[in-house]
């Protein structure tokens, strides 16, 4: 019965400074559904990029044996030629083109460069029948919902004679019945001998369709579970996903929690482009002075969207809900007003949203509060310089001078510049979105220390993070978020990774 279609042996992949995968092995049998589980950043996507040739042969160590032969893919087209098709979470369809045009994009049925449209439409119709999508092949992609777009992606994979289908979180954006349809389709493919690798956070789906489960953690395959040999409980998978020991070091703090500082009630937000898609549902949140509050959740759960909608309506439309600061209703409808009322938001994407990379540390530090280093619109160079120097020292930004362009700083130092900028606005409540993403361990510890310091000064701090140990290490209270709503809250003392994970996956 061991008809192996794919074997990855001892895959190790390093990025500068980080080992993303270390000695990962994976076996996929022909016609099975193989689930890949793990936390965000565990290395699942990296592994699939190695397999599909996004990271070409030679940029990693280890072997890929596909259909009995050792293969060396130089790019994604090489793996596609062999029938390995990957469908990413963000769909790669052109919304302005029709279903047929999308399916054959880059792979057109043509004679000497002239497209044979009758053939294209006929083939498309067949493919759509196979995936159970009842739409005309000339329908524009943009007019389809996400679920149907997903099916078009699969039809596109079928058109390329797929033998191994890789789906990265295919159901993350789908409604319940669309998800069911998709999973049924996978089972059907399985009967036809097509193997699938399914990356998913939804354990109920995995236990429904998977034949084998591989759990990845910190770049290592920690467990391979055979669903037919034994009954696999969701707990077993969760334990595998989060099972690292809690030996991370977090600076000690004795919380001195005061009166409620910020209170958000019945916060609702709709998608900025499609008004019927609700992104945030009935969120209620409280932060007290001196309290560090975490928001846990998977990617796409709406944490950033919530924070940005709160911060001057920087995300979404039809925003409703009330915001109170120290019991007084406040207006946070523009960034200016939010800042004036003592709110600060430190973005998760410091390069895109946080910094003007081409400018100096000094200029970035004062950008959000230029008013207090200027008189009647004229900037006082000396005072501005003093401010920048103060923050450089207080936050230990390692740089020869504050006139250094932030482009040339390391991730940790860049993060400190963004923090400086917001600390200089003297906020009461800081929202820190993934404050330690992409920075090294030492800098992380410094950021945690700054957070503790801010809390000790009586500020309220909200930390959004995908790293659960981090939240458990620094927060006093954690809200668990999924699909735009808070599922509940846990006091730090009673919270654990298992509890949070099971709250999310069983929601």
């Amino acid at each position: 019965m061991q008809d192996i279609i794919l074997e990855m042996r001892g895959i190790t992949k390093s990025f500068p400074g980080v080992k993303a995968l270390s000695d990962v092995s994976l076996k996929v049998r022909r016609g099975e559904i193989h689930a890949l589980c793990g936390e965000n950043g565990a290395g699942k996507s990296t592994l699939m990029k190695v397999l599909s040739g996004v990271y070409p042969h030679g940029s990693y160590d280890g072997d890929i044996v596909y259909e009995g032969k050792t293969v060396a893919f130089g790019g994604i087209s090489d793996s596609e030629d062999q029938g390995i098709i990957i469908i990413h979470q963000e769909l790669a369809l052109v919304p302005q083109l029709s279903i047929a045009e999308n399916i054959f994009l880059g792979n057109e049925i043509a004679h000497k460069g002239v497209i044979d449209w009758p053939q294209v439409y006929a083939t498309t119709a067949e493919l759509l029948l196979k995936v159970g999508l009842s739409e005309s092949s000339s329908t524009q992609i943009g007019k389809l919902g996400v679920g149907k777009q997903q099916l078009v992606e699969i039809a596109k994979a079928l058109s390329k004679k797929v033998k191994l289908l890789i789906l990265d979180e295919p159901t993350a954006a789908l409604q319940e019945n669309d998800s069911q349809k998709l999973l049924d389709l996978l089972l059907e493919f399985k009967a036809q001998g097509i193997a699938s690798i399914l990356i998913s956070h939804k354990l109920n789906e995995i236990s429904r369709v998977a034949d084998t489960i591989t759990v990845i953690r910190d770049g290592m395959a920690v467990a391979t579970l055979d669903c037919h040999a034994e009954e696999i409980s969701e707990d077993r998978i969760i334990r595998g996903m989060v099972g690292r020991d809690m030996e991370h070091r977090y600076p000690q703090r004795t919380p001195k929690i005061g009166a409620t500082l910020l209170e958000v009630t019945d916060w609702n937000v709709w998608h900025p482009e499609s008004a019927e898609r609700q992104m945030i549902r009935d969120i209620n949140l409280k932060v007290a002075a001196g309290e560090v509050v975490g928001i846990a959740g998977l990617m796409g759960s709406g944490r950033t969207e919530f924070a940005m909608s709160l911060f001057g309506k920087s995300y979404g439309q039809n925003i409703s809900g009330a915001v109170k600061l120290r019991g007084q209703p406040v207006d946070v409808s523009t960034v200016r007003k939010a800042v004036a009322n003592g709110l600060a938001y430190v973005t998760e994407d410091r390069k895109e949203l946080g910094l003007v990379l081409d400018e100096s540390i000094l200029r970035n530090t004062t950008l959000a509060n230029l008013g207090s280093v200027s008189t009647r619109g004229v900037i006082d160079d000396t005072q501005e310089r003093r401010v920048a120097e103060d923050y450089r020292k207080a936050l230990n930004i390692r740089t020869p001078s504050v006139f250094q362009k932030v482009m040339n700083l390391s991730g940790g130092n860049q993060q400190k510049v963004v923090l400086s900028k917001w600390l200089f606005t003297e906020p009461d409540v800081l929202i820190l979105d993934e404050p330690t993403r992409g920075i090294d361990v030492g800098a992380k510890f410094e950021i945690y220390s700054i957070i503790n310091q801010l809390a000790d000064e009586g500020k309220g701090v909200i930390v959004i993070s995908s790293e659960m140990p981090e939240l458990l290490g620094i927060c006093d209270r954690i809200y668990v978020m999924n699909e735009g709503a808070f599922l509940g809250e846990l006091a730090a003392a009673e919270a654990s990774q298992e509890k949070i994970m099971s709250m999310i996956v069983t929601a």
Partner: protein
Amino acid sequence: MEQAKPLNETRPEPQARPTVGVYLASHLRDYGMLLALVVIMALFEYLTDGTLMRPVNLTNLFLQNSYIIIMAIGMLLVIVAGHIDLSVGSVVGFIGALAAVMMVEWELPPLVVVPVCLLVGFMIGAAQGYWIAYWKIPSFIVTLAGMLVFRGLTLALLEGQSVGPFPKNFQLLSTGFVPDLFGADKPNVTAILLGVIAASAIVLLAARARSRALKFGIEDEPFSFFVAKNALLAGAIIFVAYLLATYRGLPNVLITMAVLISAYTFLTNSTTLGRRIYALGGNEKAARLSGINTERLTFLTFANMGMLAALAGLIFAARLNTATPKGGVAFELDVIAAVFIGGASMSGGVGKIIGAVVGAFIMGVMNNGMSILGIGIDWQQVIKGLVLLAAVIFDVYNKNKSR
């Protein structure tokens, strides 16, 4: 910040000052275009047997290029903010036509016409800025439309004819000279005096900036270089003032230009408004999330451009002493070229007023020099195109090298 106390409290040692050569090599980007201007001027001075720097020609050079330089100032802000304005040439033509109709046909006095035209220019810029800033319509498209609209309106206003001449006192805007307060003998003492004052002011400001920078320990410019640079600059200004003095003195437009250049240099260097325009062009999203009203800023940048284009239109019309339907055709290209030659970045956030001015002078000296040499308009265009390309390649090369 007890726990975040720095590990190394010591202030970084000021680095040893580099030698002049090393300093110049590392600041090639800053001084490159100024050097290029000097070289180009020297070249044409030689090729034209000294005609280029003759007082008459020098005066002409300023008169010919004043409107390009004035618009380059506004265009620099537009380009730093991450946009482009293609309509300025047509606005020049339109404002010239409007002024002509008001003064020649309606016989309104220039004192009324000039402010009205500046206001109209402001409104034109504001109208275009409105769509760009608040409706997020690409500036390329809005101003391309503006280019067509105002060219058409120019034709309509003038009914296809040239209209002129203008009243004498309006012509002074462009062809007038600062009168000599110390008698009418040559050389013009007022001109020389103003030249000396301007040169001293520049040196004084430079010295003050340097002493402040030294206090911060951030100055790496070698002292000898500083002295040489400022001596040359002051010398050049006084020399030019002297040359002009031996002809008819300082043209009025030169004073207008000097005031605008100083004002906008101050705006970009020292005000919150200027700082925010750079931040907007450098990273619009980050600027918005920092509480900057990016829409209003974009709007104002275009309104300002419209007003400066109107001023340029008035000066251009006054210089020709007539408004023609073709007035200002293709000016936008010279203006945009000047800004890019001066080191501004296509993607926004980078550029200096003085760079744009130097860029405009490079274009102007080349136009003037090649015309004196009798080079046809055909080859002039080819050469100007290649210079623009070379300047931008030089810029990109330096930028890549410094990474």
